[in-house]
């Protein structure tokens, strides 16, 4: 039952990403609901289901958007290791900031990797567009979205879990 609900939620997440997110662009970047969704799963459920969710949403997203599934999977790959590495670095920042920085780093990686696909097929590499129109607005969107998702859950009394895999009995 839990798996069925989780699967349905992932399908809805992907459909929202392809049908709704492109309606709210900021320059060339669009909100990445999948990225934030995976991060929220890792924080408020545990990293293990998030690790399962990554390939599932990557394949479903590639189906819905006609992108290469392998490239989409690679795009979302750095998010969880980035969150783990950031946690292990023991920087003097709270859990919210850790999660936000990991999401921003993961978002930058995802947008860069997804931009590589068209570039290998002839699109011109334009540094200005990538930084000014894609990565910077993407950072704002990812940070804002994570805040919108994170804070209400935190205010509701839910405690963000750690990224270490011992807790999830991996």
């Amino acid at each position, binding site marked *: 039952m839990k798996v069925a609900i989780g699967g349905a939620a992932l*399908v809805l997440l992907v*459909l*929202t990403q*392809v*049908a*709704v997110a*492109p*309606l*709210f*662009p900021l*320059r*060339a*970047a*669009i909100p990445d609901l999948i990225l934030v969704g995976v991060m929220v799963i890792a924080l408020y459920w545990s990293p293990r289901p998030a*690790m399962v969710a*990554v*390939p599932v949403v990557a*394949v*479903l997203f*590639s*189906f*819905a*958007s*006609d*992108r*290469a*599934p*392998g*490239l989409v*999977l*690679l795009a979302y*790959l750095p998010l*969880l*290791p980035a969150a*783990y590495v950031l946690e*292990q670095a023991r920087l003097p920042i709270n859990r919210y900031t850790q999660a936000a920085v990991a999401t921003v780093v993961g978002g930058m990686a995802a*947008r860069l990797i*997804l*931009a590589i*696909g*068209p*570039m290998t*097929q*002839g*699109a*011109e590499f*334009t540094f200005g*567009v*990538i930084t000014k*129109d*894609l990565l910077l607005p993407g950072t704002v969107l990812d940070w804002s979205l994570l805040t919108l998702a994170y804070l209400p859950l935190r205010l509701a009394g839910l405690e963000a879990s750690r990224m*270490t*895999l*011992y807790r999830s009995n*991996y």
Partner: protein
Amino acid sequence: MISSRYSVWAAIMVTLALGLTIVGQAGLLDPFQGIFLKVTTPVDSALNGIFRPVADFLANAGNVNSLEDENRRLRLENEDLQNRVTQLKQDADRVKELEQALKINQGATSGIRVAANVVNRDSSAFTDVISIDRGANDGIKAGMVVLSSQGSLVGTVTKTFGTSAFIRLITDSKSKVAAQVVDSKADGIIQGEANRVLSFGLAQGDVKVGDTIVTSGIGGNYPAGLPIGKVSEVGGAPQDLFRKVKVEPIVRLSTARTVLVLTSFTPQRINIEAQP
């Protein structure tokens, strides 16, 4: 080691990504993609229908002044166009009479078109793809030409399923269309560039701001004479071999909700693929 577990997971995912790439290239995922799209297209359409008015409101709220200016400009343009339509109707009647007299068939652009609703749009700095709610069951094939409801060039069908299809818009960075300037007949290639901008490359000849660009028909992948856009900027020095020409699409691709697939025109690429 905890970190090694993330490493193992990452290694498995990279292997899976490679596997998916190979399987995807071989087309083995297509049946699953077709089923997924068949099931989810109504949900996609519903979500899009709910949120599009909100997005339109937010987009327009910040642009009231520019919308007023645009409205004023469009009213003037509309009057001018109505005058031209009257003239063109008279010319069309004359051409029809002459065609009948000379027994010439009409061009392919006036042929059978299948109307389809835009379900969603995958748009980023380098990608501009839409999906529609019509597919192979309606006679749509990969490679067919897609027009706006007013007949301007929108893009090309890239992949079809039973009840849905993907269309690469002309602003996608992989899109290239043989085109020409209406007045000077200068030939070139309309190409999508980063950030969904159109450029008119390899254009030799006189190109001015405001010139209309249409498909040239060279290569056989698009019928000749389909409107694409207007020249918005001409860069570089006049003595340059190729000027840097930016083009504004005639159709506002971001707000297109209905498109027409030109099923009566068979592009050269479909002919080549069909040959044994």
